[in-house]
Structure formats: C-alpha cells, structure tokens
C-alpha cells in the first residue's frame, strides 16, 4: 500500500538535476516526502518533526556526490540519521550482578508479553542459564495456564501461581523459590494494562520495590500508532524501564513505533518478535528497521536468512554444476526447498526492495507459497530419470506427472518452462564468460548497428 520513498524522492529531485548542492529550498520538498513516509509508518508526529529538523540541518550544504542522485543522497542522510537514533548497536540483557536476576515484562494488553516471556526463557536456556518463568497475570482468564503450556514447550519450569494471589506476593514467593531451586534468571510475566490505569500501574511499582529488578522490559506492538509515545513515556516514568521488545514485526507494519518509543524513552530496543513460533525472537537491527520504516526493503535480512540455510559446500557444488551446465530438475527442487527453509515466501519477497510496487500491478509474477508447493509436488512426481533429463518428458509423461502431483498438464508445462528458461539464462551467463576470455568483441546493441 505504500509507495517507495526512494521513487517519490527521485520524482522530487528530477527538477533539481544540475544543482550541485543541496540547499534549504530544494531539500524542503524532499523533506515533506520523508515526513509523509515517516507518518505513514506510524512514527509519532513530534518525533518526526524533530527528526526532520535535524536531518535538514545535516543535509543542507552537502555536495551532491557524483555517484549518487540527489534523491539517493537525501535517503542516505535520512537513513544514517534513523540508524543513529534507533541505537547503533544491539544491547544484550543485563544478567550480571547478584543471582538470581529478575526480568519483569510490562505492556498493554495483547502486546505479546506472555509469548515473549517464553521466547526469552528459551533463548536464555540455550545460553546455559537456568530461567524460571513466573506468571503474574491474575486478571486475564487462563493467562497463567498459557504460560504453563509455553513453559512446557520450552522446557523451562514455571512458578505455580494462582489467580487469587496478589502479583506482588507471587513475585516475592517466586524469587524465594528460585533461590532455593538454583534458578539464576526469573522472568515475571505481568498482566496487560493501560498506561492510564493508575491502580494497575501502581501494582507494577509495588513489584519493582518488592524485588530487585535487573530488567524491566516494555513490550510494544510494532503496529501501534501515534499513541506509542504516550504509552511508552508513561511506562518509562512509572517503572523506569530498561529495554524494549517490539513484537509482531513479521507483519507488514512498517514499525514506526520503534522510532517513537526509542526516541521518547531513550531505552534500547533489545529484541524483536517475528512470529508465533517459540523461536521467533531476534536481536534488534537498527539499520534494517530504518530501511523498513522508510519502506525500502530489507536486503540484509534476506542475505542473512539465505546464509543460514545454504551451506558453503553445497553452494560451491551448485556453482560447478551450473558451470558444467548440468543443473537438473533435481537441483532445481533442492533450490526450491532451500528457499522454503528460509521461511514464508511472501515474507521473503517483502524484504526485496521495490517489491511493494510490483505487488500493486495486477497479475505480477510474484511467487506464492501455493505455487511453490505445486512446483515441488510436480518435480517430486517425476522419476529420477526425468529429473536428470527433462527432454524425455513427453506428453504422456506429462499427463502422468500432472496426475501424480494433483495438478494439470498446463501447470507441469509451466514448471518445465520456467526450468528451461533458467537453463537458458545460465547458459548465457556462461557464454559471456567464455566470450570475454576469448577476447572477442561483443556484438553491438541493436540500435547502434549500422
């Protein structure tokens, strides 16, 4: 739904071609676009204003670099400034000091405190710590039950509290029990509350004075709007939060709330939640979030994801195959499966810059999960022989494959077509390298031929 900021800025700067320097006037219009982009990403208006002012100051007078279009240059300044604001480095949890350390989760209803508690417990456990989950949400029906179920999933013990207890008593007892049982990290999951609810806010203060808290994590929904500032500010002044967890980042929210919260509290964003499964908790990357807020795609995350699933040896093997032109349908299948390992294809596509624009075009060839699954089924319905030599796949074989995969002959054709196109492209790539080695001159482009 959002236009790409880069494109819009390019439009603004078209008029400016030939200007050697960014001046206050020609930057003003660009800044209006930046402002709109930030506001559409739900960055708080006050934060936007301050941000724009500081960026304008930095950008004015800068020489337009030869290698960059003015629009790109402004983006660069804006991006750098965003990264600086979001915090340049990821900050880990504070776990030193007298053990056990206590982490308290706080936030609005439905921001994801309980799930995040379990996710953090799982990460800590993997790092060799002995976490202890403490459900202190005595209000929402079955909230305690929820943490017990999650605790079981991540194999972390959970304090058995009951809805009749007061949260502060739960906290005290849990600390005592943790000390006895040798747990070194206590994670207290509190009930969701509105920042305007003085009584419930007081309850959290009570907990924080009853037990020594090492971390107070404010859990915020990445989709929060302009109000993120008010909420974060109140939680921060009442509770002295030590860090922020931004949840539901796997959606298409641009996450402007991250900037608002960071700016208003000055506290680091320590984690981001990127999915419902228990391992979907990542370290916060300011640069990526900055790109996302600007609507610019997230190539870095994409690369990282690719690196996680493709191991080097395999990649080299594949490169060899491509060079020898023996990239079979079997290899094609394996590549598909690798992509699938990286996660949801739509999510991956979302990280590619400019894809949002492509999505707006109807019928644009954007792969979907369903299509991927079909392709996989089709190749899996082929015999080994067919997979290594696609040329033998005649009409009757196609029919059999279609039946076997529950698709149609047309769909089988489509898969074969995309495979052969890929082969052709690979050949071309090779061809080029051969040509350059031989020192042959390339043919002139059509328009220049006489």
């Amino acid at each position, binding site marked *: 739904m959002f236009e790409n900021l880069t494109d819009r800025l390019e439009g603004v700067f078209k008029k400016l071609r030939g200007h050697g320097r960014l001046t206050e006037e020609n930057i003003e219009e660009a800044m209006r676009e930046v402002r709109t982009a930030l506001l559409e990403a739900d960055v708080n208006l006050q934060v936007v204003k301050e941000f724009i002012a500081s960026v304008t100051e930095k950008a004015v007078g800068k020489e337009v670099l030869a290698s960059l279009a003015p629009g790109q240059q402004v983006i660069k300044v804006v991006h750098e400034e965003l990264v600086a604001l979001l915090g340049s480095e990821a900050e880990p949890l504070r776990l030193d000091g007298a053990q056990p350390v206590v982490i308290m989760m706080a936030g609005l209803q439905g921001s994801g405190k309980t799930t995040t508690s379990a996710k953090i417990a799982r990460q800590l456990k993997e790092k060799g710590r002995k976490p202890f989950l403490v459900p202190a949400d005595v*209000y929402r029906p079955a909230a305690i039950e929820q943490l017990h179920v999650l605790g079981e999933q991540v194999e972390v013990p959970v304090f058995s509290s009951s809805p009749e207890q007061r949260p502060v008593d739960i906290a005290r007892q849990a600390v005592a029990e943790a000390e006895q049982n040798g747990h070194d990290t206590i994670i207290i999951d509190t009930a969701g509350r509105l920042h305007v609810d003085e009584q419930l806010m007081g309850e959290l203060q009570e907990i924080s004075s009853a037990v020594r808290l090492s971390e107070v994590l404010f859990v915020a929904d990445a989709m929060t709007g302009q109000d993120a500032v008010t909420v974060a500010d109140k939680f921060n002044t009442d509770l002295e939060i030590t860090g922020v967890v931004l949840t539901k980042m796997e959606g298409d929210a641009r996450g402007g709330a991250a900037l608002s919260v960071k700016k208003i509290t000055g506290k680091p964003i320590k984690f981001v939640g990127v999915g419902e499964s228990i391992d979907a908790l990542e370290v916060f990357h300011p640069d990526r979030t900055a790109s996302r807020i600007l609507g610019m795609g997230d190539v870095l995350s994409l690369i990282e994801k690719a690196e996680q699933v493709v191991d080097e040896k395999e990649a080299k093997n594949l490169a060899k195959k491509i060079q020898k032109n023996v990239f079979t349908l079997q290899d094609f299948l394996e590549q598909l499966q690798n992509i699938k390992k990286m996660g949801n294809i739509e999510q991956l596509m979302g990280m590619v810059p400019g894809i949002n624009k492509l999505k707006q075009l109807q019928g644009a060839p954007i792969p979907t999960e369903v299509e991927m699954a079909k392709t996989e089924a089709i190749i899996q319905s082929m015999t080994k022989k067919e997979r290594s030599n696609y040329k033998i796949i005649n009409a009757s074989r196609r029919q059999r494959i279609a039946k076997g995969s529950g698709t149609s002959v047309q769909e089988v054709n489509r898969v074969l077509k995309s495979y052969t196109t890929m082969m052709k492209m690979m050949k071309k790539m090779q061809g080029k390298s051969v040509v350059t080695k031989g020192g042959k001159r390339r043919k002139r482009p059509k328009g220049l031929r006489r």
Partner: protein
Amino acid sequence: MLGWFKKKLSGKKEEAAAEETVETADRVDAGEESAPSSTPGTLVPDEVAPPMKEPAESDEPAEAEEQKKPQRRSMFQRLQKRLGKSRNHFVHRLDNLFRGKKKIDQELLDELEEILITADLGVSTAMDLLDAAKDSVKRQELNDPQALKKVLRDKILSFLQESNQPAELVLPESGPFVIMVVGVNGVGKTTSIGKIAAKFARSGQSVLLIAGDTFRAAAIDQLKIWGERVDVEVVAGPPKSDPSSVVFDGVAKGVAKDYDVVIIDTAGRLHTSVNLMEELKKIKRVIGKNLSTAPHEVMLVVDATTGQNAVSQAKLFNEAVGITGLTLTKLDGTAKGGIVANICHELKIPVRFIGIGEQVDDLRDFDPEEFVDALFSVGEESDSV
C-alpha cells in the same frame, strides 16, 4: 443494548431498512449543510442526546428512540469519561486550538493537520478532511473557527457512516445467527467474544461459543472461562487440533440444538501470513457446510491503538473472508480511535461494537453520531464558562 441485532429481531425487512438508513443519512447531510453556522449543541454530560441528532432521530420510529435513550446516555457518559481520561487527547487539543483563534489562517490549518494525524487518522484521510475544510473556507462559508470544527465533525461522521453493508442484518429464517470473529494477534478477540456472548445471553438468546483458536496456548481455556462467567456453552476440541473440524462440529451442534447465536473464535493471525489466511478461508467454507447461509457476520476485531497498519489488516482480512462488521477494542486507552474513521472511509465497513473498558458491559454498540459527539463535546463545558 444490542442495537443492530435487536432491530433485526423486530423487523425482517432488511432491504427496506437499509434504504431507510441511506435516506436518513442523506437527510442528515442536507440538514446540516443548510445550517452550517449553527453551533453544535453545548453538551454537559447529563444531557440525554445532543440536539444535533434530532433531525435524524425524528425519522426513526418513536418507539425505537424511546428504547435507545436511556442506554444512550450511559454509553455517552461512559465514553466521554473514558475518552476524557487522557489529557492530551484529540478534542482537548482541538479545543485549545480553536479557543484562542478568531479567524482561519494557514497556521490554524497546519495545526489542525497535526492534530488529525496525531489521532491516527492517517496522512491521506487527514488531507481529505483538511481539503473539505479548506473548500468551505474558500467558499466563504466559514469564517469562524467554531464553524470549522463543525465541518470536521460532519466530515468524520460521514466517514463513519460510509458503509456498503446493510446497517441492519436479517436473522436467518431458521437456524442460528453465526458470527465468525477474526483479527490479528492480541487485539482482544476472545475477550470481545465473551462480552458479546454476555450481551446476547442477557437479552434472552441462547448462545453457543466455538473455540476455534486451537493454536495459542490456553486460548481454549480462556474461552471456556468466559463461557462459565457468562453461563453459555462452549464447544472445544483438543489443543493443536484442526480448527476447521472443531468449527464443523460446533456449527453442527448449533444447528441441531437450534441455538439463537453461534460465535466462533479463531486464532489470531497476521494478515500477511498467507497460509494462515488460507486456513481462515477454509474455516469460513466449513461453517457453510452445515448452514449454507452462515456465517452471517464476519467480524474483524481491531485494536484502537493500532496505527496505519489497521487499514492493511482490514483490507487483507476483507479480501480473504469478506468482513461485514468491525469491533474496535481498547478505545479507553487511546482516546484517539482515528483509525476507525480511516477504516470506515477506505473499506466501507460498519463498526458494530466498541470496547471502552475491561468490564463485561464495557463493550458497547457503536453509534457513529454518538461517537463523534462524544469526541467533539469533551471540553465544551469549559468553553461555555
């Protein structure tokens, strides 16, 4: 208590009713345009209904009006009280803005834009509103800021009333009225279902809840506890089982035992997750297997503190399962809710309920006029002093 549902129970002439509503809306617009300079009624919380609404209400049957009045006041007061909680909210700022001003200038418009954006109305909707305001200024219909405020009020109201769904739904000839509740994670689906169930139960309907959220830990227990609280029956399967099969069994039971209302809970899912949206489509198809007309209502629950992403949510859920109504939750915390206007404007889906507190009866029928009036009346008391 159950505005849209009750109406539906009393009269089954859906189409006629819908037409009437359209007409009414037109008349309201016309009435307001003809008297643009009249100041909106000065409202103290004790007043029953704002005078502004009277032309609209006079078109309705007197009986219905009678019925609604007492409830209106309580909701109105409560909403005002709730909205008034936050000091820095929308209308307060609007009032501050207008109070010091004697004429409309660019500075005022700029500030206005900021206020609108801060209320999560979104850049484009805010621009639409401002354009309307500017137009009026150009045509010299306006010269004092109070009138500008009225223009804004009317415009936001017209956004809220834009809807291509019938304002009143018709109860099926036979079998239960089936509501399927959808939304992203953590917006308050299960809680809203508990509260909606309580409403129906209290008005004497038999209610069946179906725990279609088999994914989130303890979601089934949560719904069961709500079932006990409001004393309605809950159909549930084991955790991690296929939600469609639970829903199939549930609807079958609802039909067999002839419940009046069947409410289906679904697991929260982000609208961008294609697989989970497919699952939702399947659930909807399965509902229709036992009752071809069902679901009669597909309700999207939206968190009022959500920003511009709410529009994306509504769009994608609408594409997948065809949303027919909205419930806006957690409105008491934000005092903004500008996103409602945005969604209504962009998708033409009516808001059915708003959640303005944690008590069971804090889930209220949504009345656009009342909502706008509550928004715009806070602080007028001090104005008149």
